[in-house]
């Protein structure tokens, strides 16, 4: 078996607040293979974003307290700042959720793309006077030469008339356009792994579709892996090869997109799928999961979903959660899996259920 591109093992990321500790990520493990699109789904607060940021080592003010993250075998949790910077500049890129806040408002979009190109060229040589454009002291001839590349990137992500927009500021862009610009920034460093943290959440539906389309195209043309964080199962079904379902800072279930969507084993996954509008008849009320997302304060014992789980018993709140192999690579972390109805068997026939 080839080495995975990214391998996360037992990751714990904590946040210290005034008087308590928030266990945002609480023992997450998964792998991403080269060229694979992995979707991470879960409700808000389930630790998806923190996991993504931990991988980029942007977890501050949180802290990785345990576990390991390996990129092509290199341990990111122990890596030096230089290594991390080189990786960010050349191997991994990230696209954030809200395009309205992820672009620096005081620099032109092209400036921000060129920066990315510059870092990619030479991550270890970043002279301040050149980046700051200090009058008389900077030499930016090669920055100007990069303009063609910027235009190329901009058109690649679907920004129309890129030549005319070279001097535009982010506020002169619409939301969708900004997300494309953000994508261009991320692609400028020619990453092997693109982490997209809910890249379409803040956009309206038609734009969402366009962005997703661009993502799929890019993945195909550049042969890069994508880690797509979303709470939208619809998005997952469209672009992902594999899905990781997270809840309460832990991985609940993993499997191929098809497995997760058609035969979810974990009660949380099932509940999540039930809430999707597509599953609901018109006029019928949208299903919701009863209860509150746990606040993840202090040490967590047992299954974080236990309090909301229809199949939970007393043991679920204290026992450790076993990861059960459900066949064909599908895994679910549940201590009462035997009590949970199995859609695969249900599909086969009523007699299959107990």
């Amino acid at each position, binding site marked *: 078996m080839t080495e995975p591109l990214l391998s996360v093992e037992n990751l714990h990321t904590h946040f210290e607040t005034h008087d308590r500790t928030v266990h945002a990520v609480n023992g997450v493990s998964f792998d991403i293979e080269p060229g694979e699109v992995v979707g991470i789904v879960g409700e808000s607060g389930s630790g998806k974003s923190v996991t993504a940021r931990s991988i980029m080592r942007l977890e501050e003010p949180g802290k990785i307290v345990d576990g390991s993250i390996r990129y092509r075998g290199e341990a990111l949790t122990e890596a030096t700042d230089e290594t991390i*910077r080189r990786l960010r500049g050349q191997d991994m*890129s990230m696209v*954030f959720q809200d395009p309205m806040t*992820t*672009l*620096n408002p005081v620099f032109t979009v092209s400036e921000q793309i060129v920066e990315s190109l510059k*870092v990619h060229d030479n*991550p270890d040589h970043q002279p*301040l006077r050149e980046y700051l454009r200090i009058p008389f002291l900077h030499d930016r001839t090669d920055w100007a030469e990069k303009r063609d590349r910027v235009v190329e990137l901009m058109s690649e992500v679907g920004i129309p008339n890129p030549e005319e927009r070279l001097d535009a500021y982010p506020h002169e862009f619409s939301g969708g356009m900004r997300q494309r610009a953000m994508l261009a920034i991320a692609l400028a460093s020619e990453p092997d792994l693109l982490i997209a943290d809910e890249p379409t959440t803040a956009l309206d539906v038609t734009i969402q579709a366009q962005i997703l389309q661009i993502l799929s195209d890019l993945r195909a043309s550049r042969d890069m892996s994508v880690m797509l964080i979303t709470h939208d199962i619809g998005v997952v079904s469209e672009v992902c090869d594999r899905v990781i379902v997270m809840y309460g800072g832990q991985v609940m279930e993993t499997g191929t997109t098809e497995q997760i969507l058609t035969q979810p084993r974990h009660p949380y996954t099932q509940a999540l799928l039930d809430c999707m509008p597509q599953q609901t008849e018109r006029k019928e009320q949208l299903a919701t999961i009863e209860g509150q997302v746990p606040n993840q304060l202090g040490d967590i014992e047992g299954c974080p979903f236990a309090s909301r789980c229809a199949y939970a018993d007393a043991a679920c709140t204290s026992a450790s959660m076993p990861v059960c192999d459900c066949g064909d690579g599908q895994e679910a972390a549940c201590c009462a899996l035997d009590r949970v109805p199995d859609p695969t068997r249900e599909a086969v026939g009523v007699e299959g259920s107990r």
Partner: protein
Amino acid sequence: MWKYIVRRIISGLAVLLGVSVLTFSLTFFTPGDPARTILRKQMGGRSPSQAAIERFREANGLNDSIPVQYVNWVTDVMQGDLGASYHSETAVTTLIGQNLMPTVELAVAGLAVALVVAIPTGVISAVHKGGRLDYGSQVLALLGLSMPNFWLGYLLMLVFAVQLGVLPTHGFGTFGHLVLPAVTLGTGMAAVITRLLRSSMLEVLDEEYIQTARSKGLKERIVVYKHTLRNALIPVITIVGLQFGYLLNGAVIIEMVFQRPGLGSLLIDAIFARNYPVVQGLVLIVAVVFVVTNLLVDITYRYVDPRISLGGGGE
């Protein structure tokens, strides 16, 4: 943009009108006759005769009622004439012209000192939030903010001019003469800017685009000094602009401590001598400087923060 500037100028004129009415009406309540005071000063401390006083009052229009004097004054000001000092026929504009540069020099130097100190301190303080450096610079900033500057001036003078003898105690002209006053003036302002920049930096460091910058693989130095500082400076510029006007407050006292010529000394002398044309002219000029600085600050925004359009609202 032009529309905006015109609007600002009109409201600026209203401010000037208000300030001038305010200062002018103060002369209503004033004890002390300018004629006697000024003549006494001219005569080296001798009391002038009643006839001389009458002549003086007549010559300077002091026998008119205050509103009449005000209208006359405004009419003259419209024609660019701020009147003449009671002391002699020297035009107030000339006097102000003579005293403007020393004060501007002091203010600019003070501002430079403040920025040179405050920008690195504020940045370091924010970057090391909660650490010893942060704590130290916050305490220093608070001390700078709380120290009466005349006391600071004397302390600096005592140390650098008297004990060490490296700088002149007083006077005006050379670079050396500027150092102590500028440091004295700059200290309080440095404290203000440091505090403001720190909190502004902290706010910006929380912004998502800083994560974007980091995610590109930019060095922390560039993240801080390019992406963070540039944004954090925007609110600082407002305050610096406003403070530049307030620097005149400090200049009054510092000019007195260090014996520098300037608008401050001129104003104090004029107030005590009841030299009303000079007081009114100065107050007006200061208000003009203030209004203009504010306008310039607003326009500078356009260059620093591309989101703000002077046409109004922005997006």
